[in-house]
Each structure stands twice: as C-alpha cells, then as structure tokens.
C-alpha cells in the first residue's frame, strides 16, 4: 500500500526529522517504491515461524550486581554538544554537571512534545 504525504509527515514527526514540504512527494514515492518490493513477502505462509525460532533461542547471560562500571576516559564536557556562550564562542551545553536543553515548562510539556 502506497505511502501518502500525510504518512510521511506522521512518521517524520515520530522520528523528529523535519521534511521540507517540497521533498514530501519525492520521499513518499521513494518509500512507496521500496515498500512495493516488500509485498513479495505476503506470498509465503510464515505464521509463527519467528515465535518458534525464538523459543529455541538460548537465554541471555546475566551479570553480577557489582561495580566496576566502564570508565569514561574523557570528561563529559569533552563530548557534550556545544551551544553559543558569552562572546559568541561555543561552549559545552552543560552546567553544574547537568546537560542543558531548551527549556520545557514542566513535565507535561513532554507529553505535548511526544
């Protein structure tokens, strides 16, 4: 089934990627073109094959509840993204040990963001 412009807008929003309006149709066509090849899968009966394979898989190894953790060889400030500081220089987006992001008023804005 072909992907519409609205579908592209919806999945781009979920993926936090801005797609310019001009590129919507091209992208919708490209993705539809790729997905058309996937229709071949519907031809083979496969119900439950993955579940059966999963049930045969070995379980994961667990680890002990103990240190040491994997150390950081460079400080967090060295890899933090940068923002414009005073004097228009780029400075790490960190303050007093916190990572900084553009302000959200409260946690509920998160839901709006979601």
């Amino acid at each position: 089934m072909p992907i519409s412009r609205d579908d592209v807008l919806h999945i781009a929003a979920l993926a936090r990627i801005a797609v310019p309006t001009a590129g919507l149709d091209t992208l919708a066509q490209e993705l539809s073109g790729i997905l058309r090849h996937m229709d071949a899968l519907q031809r083979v009966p496969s119900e439950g094959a993955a579940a059966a394979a999963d049930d045969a898989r070995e379980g994961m190894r667990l680890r002990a509840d103990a240190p040491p953790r994997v150390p950081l060889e460079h400080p967090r400030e060295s890899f933090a993204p940068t923002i414009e500081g005073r004097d228009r220089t780029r400075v790490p987006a960190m303050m007093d040990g916190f990572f900084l992001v553009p302000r959200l008023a409260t946690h509920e804005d998160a839901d709006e963001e979601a």
Partner: protein
Amino acid sequence: MTDTAEPLLMQGAGAIARAVRAGSASARSVVEASFARATQVDAGPGGLNCLVSSDREASLRAADRAPEDGALAGVPVVLKDNIATTWLTTSCASRILEGYVSPYEATAALRLREAGAVLVGKGNMDEFAMGSSTEHSAFGAARNPLDRSRVPGGSSGGSAAAVASGIVPVALGSETGGSVRQPAAFCGIVGVKPTYGRISRFGLVAFASSLDNIGVFGRRVDDAARVMEVVSGDDTEHDATSAPRAVAGFRTSERDLTGMVIGKPKEYFPASLPRANSERCERALDALRARGAEIRDVSLPHTDLAVPVYYIIAPAECSANLARFDGVRYGLRIEGDGLRGMYEATRSRGFGAEVTRRILLGTYVLSAGYYDAYYRKAMDVRALITRDFSTVFASGVHALFTPTTPTPAFQHGAISDPYEMYMSDIFTVTANLAEVPAISIPIGRVDGLPVGGQVIAPRFDEATMFKVAYALEEELGKEAHR
C-alpha cells in the same frame, strides 16, 4: 627470515608480527612505512579518500607503546569509523558525529591493541554503515584503488580500499548486510563476516543490532584468520549477544578437502548473473574439486525474499538505534524553536539522505497498524531463511559456495535508485539474516575488475569456512587475480 624484495609492509600481518617479535623491525618503522604508503597512493580526500581521520604522530607514539610480543605486534590497522576508539574520531562518516571522540574503546579495538596492532586511521564508510558504495559519506565518496572511477563497495569501503592499496595489511569493517564481503569482492581482497555473536559488538555503533557484525579484511586468508583469532571471543560482560564460546584456532595448514561436501545453491546462480562472473565461479568450483571436495547442487528456497526482509528489519532497528542522536549529550546540536525544534534541526541537518530514508522507512514499518504486515512478517520470513540454511547443513553439506556479488564494482553515481542499490546485497544479506559465517575471497577478474567468491559455513563453524577458503586460495594461486 623476511629476506625478499617485497617491503615488509606488503608481506602481510603475519610477516610483520614475526619481524617485530624477532626484533628485526620496529613497530614504529612499520607504521612509518604505512603512512608513507598512504601518501604514495594518495589516500587523502582528493584521492582514494579512504580515511576520515588519522594522526601520524599519535600513531607513532602508539607504535612505541605497543607490546612487541603480541600476535599482531607492530601491525598497522585501519578501523572503520563506526568502531569506538579513544583517540581519532568515531564519526560514522556522519555530520551528526563529526569530530566525536569516544570516551571508551570497543572490545575489538582493545583486543587488537593488546595484541600489538597499531591504529593508523579510521576508515571512510557509508554514513552509519547504510549503503553499498561508500558514496553516502558526509566526508565524500571513497574510491576503488583498482579503478578510481569506480566505487570500492560499501559500507566498509574505506577499510577495504586501505587494505587493497597496501596502506595496511588488515583492517576491521562492519557488516549488516554484506558491508565487508561486498567491498572485499570489489577491491580484490579477503573479507570475513563471522557468526553473529562471535566478535563483540561492544563499541560498534549500532545500525541494526540483530544483524550487525564486526568483520575483518586482509589481503590473504591467513591474515584474516589471524585477526579473527585475536578479536573473537566471549564478551558477555559488555554485550549480551556475544557468544560465551571459546575460540578454536582458525588458522590451519590443511589444504585437502577430501570428504568435504560443498553445496552450490541454485538461487545464487541466476540466469541474470553475467557469464564472465559465472565462469569465474565455475573455475573456483573446479579448484575445490581439485582439492578433493564434492560439489553438490542444493537449494535455499527463500533466498529471493532476503532483500525485502532485510530492508524491513534493518531500517526498523535503525530507526530506534539512531534515536539517541538527539543533540542532548554529544555530537551535533543545531538550535531550533524550543526542544522539538532543536531535535528536528539537529537530526534533519545531521543525517544524510539515505540515513533519513531508512529511519523513516523503519519508523513506518513499526508504526501502529503496519507492524504485523511488515515487521512481524519479516521476522517470520527471516526464520524461514535461517531454516533453509540449517536444513542444508543438516543434510551433510559442510559449506556453501556462491558468488559474493551479482556484478563487479560499478561506476561512481551509476546507481541512483535506492532499491537497485539494495539489490547489490542480494547474495550477502542471507548470511546476516541467518547469523552464519561467510567469507569472500578473490576468484579472478573480469575486464580487470575483481570478482569475489563466497564460502558460507554453519553457525560457529568458522574453522570449516577458513579451511575451504585456504584451499581455494592456494589452488587458484595467481588465477585469483586474473
């Protein structure tokens, strides 16, 4: 003991390590030779463009510190730029990680370093390993050393070109659907994709976690096996999908294949395969017969579904794996309108077109209403593809032989349709989906361009895979490059 006209660097990893261990060469001198070779072959951005970062002085210092008694003492190596190293970048050839230096080291990188290998550069690649040509790099396309108008293959094209051009004898790449074997075939070298879980993925920047493997390049089978022995093995402390299995030796002097049954799956020899390629494959099969192997026609009936399955599962996993690139803790950040604006500006500008396409595709196949039709279906068919392999291997077949790619290296810009590009993985994706080990080795040339042959073995039976590859390499001899 290395008394030949060929410079030590060109004699391979085994010869270098022997010389350094014996004290007849220093790690520093080998690393110097490696940098000289890079200059000689014009490895930089205007030339092969196979390295996205390197630092001669730092590498020489690392050479001076390298243990001189290791299995890879003094061996210069290139690591694909998606394998974490605490010096040089780990950018995945993406704007979103441009200049990023990892504060921790990948297990495979650590094991190489402890064996005495010296990092001389990070290999160019398709952004986040998504591509089959190393054209989708934020730092420009890499070139094929054998014909610079052509692609080196991808996504590990930089590592492959570095080995093929003689800058290093061995290198690490990564595979999700053929990204080591295909560039190995295109560049006329050896490329290994081990069994899933054989080499720890800790420190390999994830593209599609259930398919990703670190892989090994070498000019000779023996060098590839040597590196495999170093980087393989249990790392369940850092990677829950790592196999808690001891590593048997992969190197062998056995060249006799008597009693061995090698399957020739008909789905890998379609009518569309160019005749010249098909002839090189037949010559390779004759070589295997000459070593005593029985060649048996077999079938892996779900092979034609591998590419569609792959291009559902890999994008789905990638859409989640690449969500962490959000401008909050590391990497690129571009301010926008509030938090959401920052996310969208950062990700839209940070990711290239192919990565964006796959993230969107993956988001779509997982989204409400489509999951069952795409993702669940693909997982089911993946299980059928896996079953194809186990059925064949259970029927008395020890290994399979196939061509590695449907065509030799293509011209830059020759393929623009995404799905056509995806189809160049048609013979390699199956091994990733079925988690089995596979190796590509040179089996000849067509119009001067290398052709690769692939040996596939059962899970965790790299020993058989290598045994067949050693025998084939020796039997073909110089034919492998004709």
